[in-house]
């Protein structure tokens, strides 16, 4: 998107960092790609070097450290991130909220930007710590519907992805 | 040029020795003898204050550093020559070996105690930390390019403000027990020693708190360092150590320690022994008269100080 102009309807703003960690990002156009490429490459490099994968909390700490370093550099990245994953050892799900200032918070549900104001109120009401995946997908659908209804932007659909610890499944692709 | 071809002069010989370091030790072993003796660990020194000038060292404990001050010519002005140096208010040192190298180390020790410690924590480094920092400087000279090892061994004596572990076999309550004593009023069971306290007493450790009291260290040109109760370095180190082994006792008061130091020095000294040819530094109770001011609550004078010519001569007459 460039101002009011839609340039692409199928832009995927998620990355697989390893077999059990996923990252979603938003922010300044060039920065998001540069930064997520860098993170993706380094997390994968770690897996190759050590024949083991970083857990979600280790990935989150690494990303935060890189973003915090960038924050006090001459030209910081302007990227907001959500990091999700299932810890391969404890099999517990993790979600991290990370903004461009490198504030990292473990959260049960999260959103960035304007979407926060709509999504968080829905999630505050409907989210419980013990909901299953199906209910989670329903909540995401509710959020997407709400954004469609309230925001003066056509998002050209949404991508929702899940992790069951082993591999990622992409659910709904781009909808027209 | 200098930075392109700058390699360490200290390289291994085929037999696995670093002969440059051995040569540095040879330089030390030709140097004038210095010695250090640690006195009895005081039990209530923290509360002891400086009393009167005539009674300077009564009932105090600590460490003595002593060395011979040799002058090659009668024309030299002895008081301007100094081998015992103050590093921090509670730490001092003396050397055997090459004088100029020692002066560099004194400068570096004084500087590092501020840059690496006082300017960060607003307190002076504990003795072991200072010793480690000086030892690092000496070790770096054995591995860096374009330099030679320092031709000195050091004796570092210092006092650390901290708690002292209870003496083994004693039921004395030192500063380490103070906390439990204070709770006595509320818990009404002051005499019961906890398991943790018993363990600490046995191990001689303090459980995460700085171990206080006096300590005496030797640092060698290689950068290795050792804690001692009493030791000697330099030309007559071996005979002096044998002498010290005979004379040293665990309950030496500092007065006695100075006495033993002078006796040891007497065995090795060649010329006359007087206030000009003997130099002594001591770690004792705070020397508030050296503070330069008085009447400030909580202000404490330096624990390390050099004995004056007159004080040394007093001890020599009693020898």
């Amino acid at each position, binding site marked *: 998107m460039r101002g009011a102009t839609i340039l692409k309807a199928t832009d995927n703003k998620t990355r697989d960092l390893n077999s059990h960690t996923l990252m979603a990002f938003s922010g300044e156009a060039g920065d998001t790609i540069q930064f997520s490429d860098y993170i993706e490459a380094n997390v994968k490099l770690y897996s190759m070097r050590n024949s083991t994968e970083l857990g979600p909390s280790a990935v989150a700490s690494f990303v935060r450290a890189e973003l915090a370093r960038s924050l006090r550099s001459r030209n910081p990245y302007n990227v907001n991130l959500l990091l999700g994953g299932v810890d391969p050892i404890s099999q517990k799900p993790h979600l991290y*909220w990370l903004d461009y200032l*490198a504030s990292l918070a473990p959260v049960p549900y999260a959103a960035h930007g304007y979407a926060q104001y709509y999504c968080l109120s829905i999630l505050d009401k409907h989210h419980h710590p013990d909901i299953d995946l199906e209910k989670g997908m329903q909540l995401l659908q509710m959020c997407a519907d709400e954004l469609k209804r309230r925001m003066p932007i056509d998002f050209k659909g949404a991508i929702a992805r899940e992790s069951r610890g082993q591999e990622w499944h992409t659910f709904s692709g781009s909808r027209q | 040029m200098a930075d392109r071809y700058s390699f360490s002069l200290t390289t291994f010989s085929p037999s696995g020795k670093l002969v440059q370091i051995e040569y540095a030790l040879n330089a030390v072993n030709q140097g004038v003898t210095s010695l250090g003796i640690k006195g009895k660990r005081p039990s209530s020194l923290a509360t002891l204050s400086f009393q009167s000038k005539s009674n300077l060292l009564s009932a105090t404990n600590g460490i003595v550093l002593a060395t011979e001050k040799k002058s090659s010519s009668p024309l030299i002005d002895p008081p301007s020559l100094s081998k015992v140096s103050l590093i921090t208010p509670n730490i001092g040192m003396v050397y055997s070996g090459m004088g100029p190298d020692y002066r560099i180390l004194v400068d570096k020790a004084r500087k590092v105690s501020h840059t690496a410690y006082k300017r960060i*924590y607003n307190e002076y480094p504990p003795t072991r930390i200072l010793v480690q920092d000086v030892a690092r400087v000496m070790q770096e000279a054995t591995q860096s390019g374009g330099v030679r090892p320092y031709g000195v061994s050091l004796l570092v004596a210092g006092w650390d403000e901290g708690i002292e572990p209870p003496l083994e076999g004693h039921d004395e309550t030192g500063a380490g027990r103070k906390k439990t004593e204070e709770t006595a009023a509320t818990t009404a069971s002051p005499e019961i020693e906890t398991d943790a306290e018993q363990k600490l007493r046995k191990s001689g450790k303090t459980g995460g*708190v700085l171990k206080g009291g006096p300590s005496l260290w030797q640092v060698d040109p290689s950068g290795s360092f050792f804690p001692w109760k009493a030791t000697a370095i330099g030309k007559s180190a071996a005979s002096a150590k044998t002498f010290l082994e005979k004379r040293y006792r665990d309950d030496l008061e500092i007065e006695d320690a100075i006495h033993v130091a002078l006796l040891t020095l007497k065995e090795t000294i060649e010329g006359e022994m007087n206030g000009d040819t003997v130099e002594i530094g001591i770690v004792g109770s705070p020397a508030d008269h050296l503070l330069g001011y008085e009447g400030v609550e909580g202000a404490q004078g330096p624990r390390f100080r050099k004995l004056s010519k007159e004080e040394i001569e007093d001890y020599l007459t009693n020898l």
Partner: protein
Amino acid sequence: MANPMSIIGKNAVAIACDLRLGLQALTVSNDFPKIFQYGPDVFLGLTGLATDVQTVSDLFRYKVNLYRLREERDISPQTMANLVSTSLYEKRFGPFFVNPVVAGINRTTGEPFICGFDSIGCIDFAKDFIVSGTSADQLFGTCEALWQPDLEAEDLFETISQALLSAVDRDALAGWGAHVYIVEKDKVTKRLLKGRQD
């Protein structure tokens, strides 16, 4: 981002903070502690910019871990205070946007100790209480009203909790639960105050 505070009692200190993480008026998380432990009885509270709270707490974890290895002992609260001060002043012309609070008991002397700092490391020593963060003004009021000398541990807990909760209830940008630490000679008690979640 809201506020740690700490108060002194008889042979004990307390340090407490709320749990909110927010962007202006938007609450992002209600489980974001701002008190960090650097020794058996040394605590640091950090308020200000969330990213700097994390960066600074990580920095001190690194510094204090190295201190403990080098010195083979735990850092005292006074030494910690000077370390915080010098570390913050190193960034005099590009500061971390934090207002730290140190609380602890000195294990050599047995004395409780608290102090606060501005963002460039000027230390504010106090005999009674230190407050920091968005509700600092309110906390001054509640602490002035509730604090008294020589509080015993249980009363200290009650005082700090009521002071904190009363203050954050008067501040829209703070609250959402709180952590309270009571530091006594040989014991540290951590309590969670659930607080209002609205």
